[in-house]
């Protein structure tokens, strides 16, 4: 008999989705209630995950579903960011009138999909999780259906994502064909070093995953989708799928295919360098903040991949640290975007920030901190993220990667500085409204304080992540 205890959190979330859907159907005007209940159910899910000792290590359903330290940590990260995303965007969706009952439910189902992805130890289960999260994301991207940009971004994301899923599936079938199994453990046992088919399979899988984390050259969708989607969906796009996809990246590359690292390492290095440089250079000309953060996130994924390309535990840990820190920086940035509201309208261009520091000193200070942190200037948390990555990279004597990465941070610093220049050096414009809901304020305050004061006591995060040992 399979012990279902360990997947109570997923089951709970699925049940919550169904119940919320029923409430939504039978109770009129219940969107606000459902929104809050979704936040509550995420909290419940978090409690269920924390209920088990974090170092549980079990495999369920014929070894296709794995619960270990990595998956537990990533799930906690995922749910936490889901809670923050929902908390910070509640007012936004009311104002741009997308506060329908489906909105939080789609987010929850996407989260379930990601949780399945994170725990998957089997190609088929992984694909199911991926599609569950993707389908919800297609709808979410075009949720503001009266807006032409939003519809366009939904369609664009759907077409490109379907293509990448196709490639991914093709890769899975190749791997199945050449190794005789879809289970990660079995693949790693049956692996044949010289098989070209297997290499092709890995390349296709990497392609599909690189699409999900928007690494160059599979990044084309990101700027359009980030810009077109409602901001509340963009923040979701920017954080959660990346956590899930990065976990799968780690699981696939480091469990079945660690033995043939020389086959995929160079691909990851290329993806990493291309993303870092492209993200830095392409963002320079942007005027829209959401578009800019899309390019910046492409660059940041390049750094996370640099950690992955090392093939060591330290590299994995540094990537995970990077994504954990990146999450808070992005959260803080989007919280600031949510605060740029005047007369029921949201502003998202760089020039709208002009002279912000005169009327909104605290908000500007938060943005200043976030932007310098994204640029990786010490002593802010963004510096530590990069520091850990490059520590892992240099340990493997990959100096070229480290130097290119650090040079691209200098290029990237330019466009972050440009925003700071607009905020602090340019003449002031009209004021923005100051009444924000408490969830948004808490999210911003929490993430800003984390970014600013992390350097005082950096050990705990490292100690938690140090325990992740895949190899």
């Amino acid at each position, binding site marked *: 008999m399979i012990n279902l205890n360990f997947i109570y959190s997923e089951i709970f979330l699925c049940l919550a989705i169904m119940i919320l859907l029923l409430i939504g159907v039978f109770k009129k005007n219940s969107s606000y209630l459902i929104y809050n209940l979704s936040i509550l159910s995420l909290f419940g899910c978090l409690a269920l995950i924390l209920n088990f000792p974090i170092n549980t290590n079990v495999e369920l359903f014929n070894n296709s579903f794995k619960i270990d330290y990595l998956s537990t940590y990533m799930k906690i990260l995922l749910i936490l960011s889901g809670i923050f995303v929902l908390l910070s965007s509640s007012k936004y969706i009311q104002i741009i009138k997308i506060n329908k009952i489906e909105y939080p439910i789609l987010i929850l189902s996407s989260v379930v999909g990601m949780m399945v992805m994170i725990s998957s130890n089997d190609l088929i289960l992984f694909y199911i999780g991926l599609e569950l999260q993707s389908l919800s994301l297609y709808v979410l991207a075009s949720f503001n259906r009266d807006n032409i940009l939003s519809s366009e971004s939904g369609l664009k994301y759907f077409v490109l994502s379907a293509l990448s899923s196709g490639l991914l599936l093709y890769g899975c079938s190749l791997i199945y064909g050449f190794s005789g199994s879809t289970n990660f453990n079995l693949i790693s046992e049956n692996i044949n070093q010289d098989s070209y088919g297997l290499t092709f399979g890995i390349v296709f899988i990497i392609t599909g995953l690189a699409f999900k984390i928007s690494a160059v050259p599979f990044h084309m969708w990101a700027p359009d989708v980030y810009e077109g989607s409602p901001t509340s969906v963009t923040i979701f796009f920017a954080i959660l799928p990346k956590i899930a996809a990065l976990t799968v990246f780690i699981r696939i590359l480091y469990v079945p295919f660690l033995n043939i690292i020389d086959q995929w390492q160079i691909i990851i290095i290329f993806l990493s360098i291309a993303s870092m440089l492209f993200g830095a250079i392409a963002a320079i000309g942007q005027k829209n903040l959401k578009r800019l953060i899309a390019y910046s996130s492409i660059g940041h994924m390049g750094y996370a991949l640099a950690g992955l390309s090392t093939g060591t535990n330290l590299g994995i840990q540094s990537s995970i640290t990077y994504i954990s820190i990146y999450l808070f920086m992005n959260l803080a940035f989007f919280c600031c975007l949510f605060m740029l509201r005047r007369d029921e309208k949201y502003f998202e261009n760089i020039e709208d920030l002009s002279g912000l520091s005169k009327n909104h000193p605290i908000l500007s200070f938060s943005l200043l901190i976030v932007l310098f942190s994204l640029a990786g200037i010490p002593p802010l948390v963004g510096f530590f993220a990069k520091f850990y990555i490059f520590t892992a990279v*240099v340990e493997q004597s990959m100096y070229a990667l480290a130097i290119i990465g650090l040079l691209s941070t200098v290029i990237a610093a330019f466009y972050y500085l440009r925003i700071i220049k607009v905020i602090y050096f340019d003449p002031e414009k009209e004021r923005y409204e100051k009444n924000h809901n408490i969830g948004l304020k808490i999210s911003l305050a929490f993430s800003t304080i984390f970014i600013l004061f992390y350097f005082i006591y950096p050990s705990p995060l490292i100690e938690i992540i140090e325990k992740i040992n895949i190899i």
Partner: protein
Amino acid sequence: MDFPFLSSLILLPLIGALFIFFSKSKSNTYLTIKYLALFVSFANFILSLYLWYLFDPSTAEFQFLEERSWIKSFINYKVGIDGISILFIILTAFITPLCIVSVNSTVKYRLKDFLVAILVMESLMIGVFCSLDLVIFYLFFEGGLIPMFLIIGIWGGERRVYSAFKFFLYTLLGSVLMLVAIISIYWFTGSTDITYLYDFGIDEKYQYLLWLAFFSSFAVKTPMWPVHTWLPDAHVEAPTAGSVLLAAILLKMAGYGFIRFSVGLFPVASEYFIPLIYILSLIAIIYTSLVALMQEDMKKLIAYSSVAHMGFVTLGIFTFTQQGLEGSIFQMISHGLVSAALFLSVGVIYERMHTRLIDNYGGLVSVMPKYSIVLMVFTLGAVGLPGTSGFIGEFLILIGAFKKSFLVAAIASIGVILSAAYMLWLYKRVVFGEIKKDEIKKMSDLNRAEIFILTVLVLPIIFFGFYPEPLLNTTEISIENLIEMYKTNINSNLVEK
């Protein structure tokens, strides 16, 4: 030592900045927050003097050591000072209150933010000078970019955005290689603790590249020719207090870095790269002095003279003689005082005339006699006249250089003559001559605050000119130790070969 002196020195300005940041900014509280900032920075100065009093100059060991676990099993927070670093800490703590007094007339808007930036800057700079771990050092070294970027960008002159960007990107580009080098050192030796690295050394085959990586950062910050071009821009556009901080302390971080890291950690590579440093230093001394001669903007002239003076400093450091190194440190302290004083003096007349072009002045001696006297002292200090602190530094450096190479010293001596030329010519054009403009007649002489600031600067410049013993005594043993360490490293390396 039980009381954490150094951490208090670092933290005190930060706490002050925090208070000021969260205070309500109304125009009538401006005075209060200014006094608060002044009080905090002055308290820090007193604390640093007390530290000097407690400091034991008879040992080269690091003193007032504090060590705490920071990133577990990786990096420790470690601070401590020796005879080399203590003087820079006192200089920082001395200059900052003067900057805060000077904001009266130079900062017209957003005073609160300015004070926060200055105080944060102070604590970061003190951190640079007392950190004994490479990563901690890098943290403070780079962190200083943020407040300085804002100081130049918000309160600067017309081309402030360009200058702020140039400053930021130049220095960032310079230091990323240093970060790679620091991480590499960690993997080569298993530690980033400087005292540990001093004891065990770094393998000779790695030293050359590591030295170059550190050099790229320090050369930009010093600044050495040909990467000095950010300095004139940053100086000219920064507000007076910003220029003072830049010239007096920020540039010294690189000189300090050369002594502490390039020489201390990579002696073999330092020996190897001596010709490079000499050539760049000599070009800096001669070329930028000539450039300074041709400047029409006073601040730009002083900025170029800073590059030339820092050329002397790098030259002195890489002579590896007692005189050369002591002279370099003395020159850095002296230049910190003199350049701060010169920028403040330019600020004084800029306030009245709103121009920095030399041609617009002339004949100030008849309207501003007091000003002319103090400016005379500072000019002579910059020239290096015997009896001012500038002389001692340059003289010692030249002695050191003569020991090493006659040619180098001879060329560097030309720089001394050139510095007399441009400084005295500047003084002549500004202070003497006919009064060309009516506005000049209306200029008032120094007010009380200005007299206070400038006198406070005149005193140490003359005092240390006549009696350099306190400074030299403090540094002597530490430098002897450094040179000894350097020589044993070089010799053991020769024996190995």
